[in-house]
């Protein structure tokens, strides 16, 4: 009787897509090794039986050589073997490399069933596999699937109960490779194909010169498209909705609200020239939804559209190759670019993704650098919205300061922390063009995630802020920190409220700056400080969980000291 099903396979063979198909639980999948850093669990219904399905991180071997592999292997040993079934997922286009794990699973006596995934890709590439023959050699069921379209999944479920142990003597890894060579000769037939344009592009993107040109073009185009899509949504959809539909509605509803006391202050906020101003009123029903939906959401959509596309095509590992050199100087290696890019969306998944890095030292450096130098989309959207009005120079300036900070701090951390930076060793996936429905699903999943996490925090946050402002409780902090804020950073003392609220959410914090009427220089400094100073509460918690308390404290101390130095430097030296 099967109580638990484990999905196991090499990195980047589509385990998570199979998992989603089996359980209906949507999980993130991309075209690069190591997308799954958290173990996902779901249930599969066969008749009346409900069986737990566990999606394990990718592993090349049962002899674990990395943390993610260790996790996968130890979970596999949790239950008695006769109560579990292992679905071993293989990439049909690269059977040879995938069979190493398969042989190990069979040798170890795990009841297994083989899922040859991406079989449509294989036929495009001229790879044909003799499945009955493979089944005969291995002695366990073999099913061809294409998880992105759902092909073969029903058959896989139907044959799950046939998952079997097969007799196979234990081999050394070297012997296993010889054995695999023999199996491949019997079951795989390669049809010679000429280099197509996709393969030419794959090749060009890892050559030094053409690779750098492509990288520059991809980054430039991504940035332009994100801005274009974001601005278009704001101009065409969200702004008209707020000013032409929502504002008249709110004004109608509140027209009889004569006494502008506590409750009015709480929900609508201050009227600017007798009217609601979404950027300055600061009410729970005015500025709060405007910040999240009107200013941030359009950029969230634009950013994740491009990121998801780059992820699924498989471009990111190639970017990692090109940046390996630079990142080595910061104590990291090329693959750190993946957590960094995810961090641009939101620091939380970025820091979680640092699990793709091997050592604790690397994860500390990467997490600290992401918290300091990688502004999340909500913060960036607000910076664009506010600072953009003063011209691209200032917006570019914030990015330049953050970039320099990452480099300088990375070099310092690398030379002061004990240990060394491990070497880069990464499999580069082929380019794949994801079906649009997969891309759409992923985008929807991420946007929904953003709304669920951000909206309640922002609405409740603004409510609490307004109560505190009304009771003048912020005046105490303002009084204490006023000298530092005014003398060192050149900001008005009210800006302290925004800096404190940065702990809650960075976008709301910038929102608090909107009514202050800051100059370009002050806004520049405040925005940079908000990016650098202190992580928001969600990032704080994930740093704690991932690094442990001691490293969290170290990391936060670094952030605070860096922000004081940078804020002062910007105020006194660079800007007039």
């Amino acid at each position: 009787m099967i109580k638990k099903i484990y999905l196991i396979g090499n990195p980047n063979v589509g385990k998570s897509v199979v998992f989603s198909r089996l359980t209906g639980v949507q999980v993130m999948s991309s075209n690069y090794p190591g997308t799954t850093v958290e173990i996902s669990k779901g249930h599969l219904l066969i008749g009346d039986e409900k069986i737990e399905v566990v999606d394990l991180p990718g592993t090349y071997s049962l002899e674990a050589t990395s943390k993610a592999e260790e996790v996968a292997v130890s979970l596999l040993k949790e239950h008695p073997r006769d109560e579990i079934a292992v679905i071993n997922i293989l990439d049909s286009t690269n059977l040879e490399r995938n069979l190493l794990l398969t042989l190990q699973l069979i040798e170890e006596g795990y009841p297994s069933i083989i899922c040859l995934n991406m079989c449509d890709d294989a036929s495009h590439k001229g790879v044909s596999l003799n499945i009955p023959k493979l089944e005969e050699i291995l002695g366990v069921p073999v099913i061809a699937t294409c998880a992105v379209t759902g092909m073969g999944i029903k058959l896989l479920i139907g044959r799950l109960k046939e998952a079997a142990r097969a007799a196979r003597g234990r081999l050394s890894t070297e012997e296993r490779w010889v054995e695999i060579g023999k199996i491949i000769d019997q079951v795989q037939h390669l049809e010679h194909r000429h280099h197509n344009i996709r393969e030419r592009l794959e090749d060009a993107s890892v050559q030094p010169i053409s690779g750098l040109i492509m990288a520059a073009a991809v980054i430039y185009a991504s940035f332009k498209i994100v801005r274009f899509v974001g601005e278009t949504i704001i101009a065409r959809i969200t702004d008209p909705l707020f000013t032409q539909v929502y504002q008249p509605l709110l004004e109608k509803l509140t027209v009889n609200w004569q006494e502008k006391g506590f409750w009015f202050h709480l929900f609508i906020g201050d009227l600017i020239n007798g009217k609601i101003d979404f950027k300055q009123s600061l009410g729970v029903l005015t500025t709060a939804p405007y910040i999240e939906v009107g200013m941030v959401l359009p950029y969230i959509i634009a950013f994740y559209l491009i990121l998801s596309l780059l992820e699924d095509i498989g471009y990111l590992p190639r970017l990692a190759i090109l940046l390996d050199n630079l990142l080595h100087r910061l104590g990291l290696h090329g693959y750190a670019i993946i957590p960094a890019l995810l961090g641009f969306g939101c620091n939380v998944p970025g820091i979680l993704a640092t699990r793709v890095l091997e050592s604790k030292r690397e994860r500390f450096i990467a997490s600290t650098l992401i918290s300091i130098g990688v502004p999340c989309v909500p913060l960036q959207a607000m910076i664009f919205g506010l600072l953009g009005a003063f011209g691209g120079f200032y917006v570019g300036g914030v990015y330049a300061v953050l970039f320099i900070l990452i480099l300088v701090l990375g070099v310092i951390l690398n030379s002061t922390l004990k240990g060394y930076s491990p070497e880069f060793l990464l499999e580069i996936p082929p380019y794949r063009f994801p079906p649009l429905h997969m891309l759409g699903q992923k985008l929807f999943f991420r946007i929904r995630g953003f709304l669920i996490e951000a909206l309640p925090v922002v609405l409740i946050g603004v409510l609490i802020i307004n109560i505190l402002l009304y009771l003048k409780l912020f005046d105490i902090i303002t009084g204490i920190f006023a000298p530092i804020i005014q003398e060192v950073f050149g900001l008005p003392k009210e800006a302290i409220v925004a800096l404190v609220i940065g702990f809650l959410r960075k976008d709301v914090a910038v929102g608090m700056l909107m009514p202050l009427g800051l100059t370009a220089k002050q806004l520049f400094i405040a925005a940079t400080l908000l990016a650098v100073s202190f992580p928001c509460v969600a990032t704080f918690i994930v740093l704690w969980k991932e690094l442990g308390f001691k490293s969290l404290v170290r990391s936060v101390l670094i952030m605070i000291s860096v922000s004081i130095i940078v804020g002062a430097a910007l105020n006194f030296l660079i800007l007039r």
Partner: protein
Amino acid sequence: MKKVSLIDLKADHKGKVLEISGGTNLQDRLMNLGVYKGKEITKLSHIGLRGPVVIKIGRSILALGHGVAAKIIVEA
């Protein structure tokens, strides 16, 4: 026949792995990826200034950090 490290092997050239110096962990990781003594590999490119080396092995493409590439000696 000459013995060179993957760093010195020219791009677009083939070589047979002769030895992998370095710790057992590195050897194990490479072994699990199919890089072991006697295996034929093709070097695809090398990002200059101590950047990584990209190789083709079987049907896989692997990127190896400069330090790893220096430890793999091939017969060209």
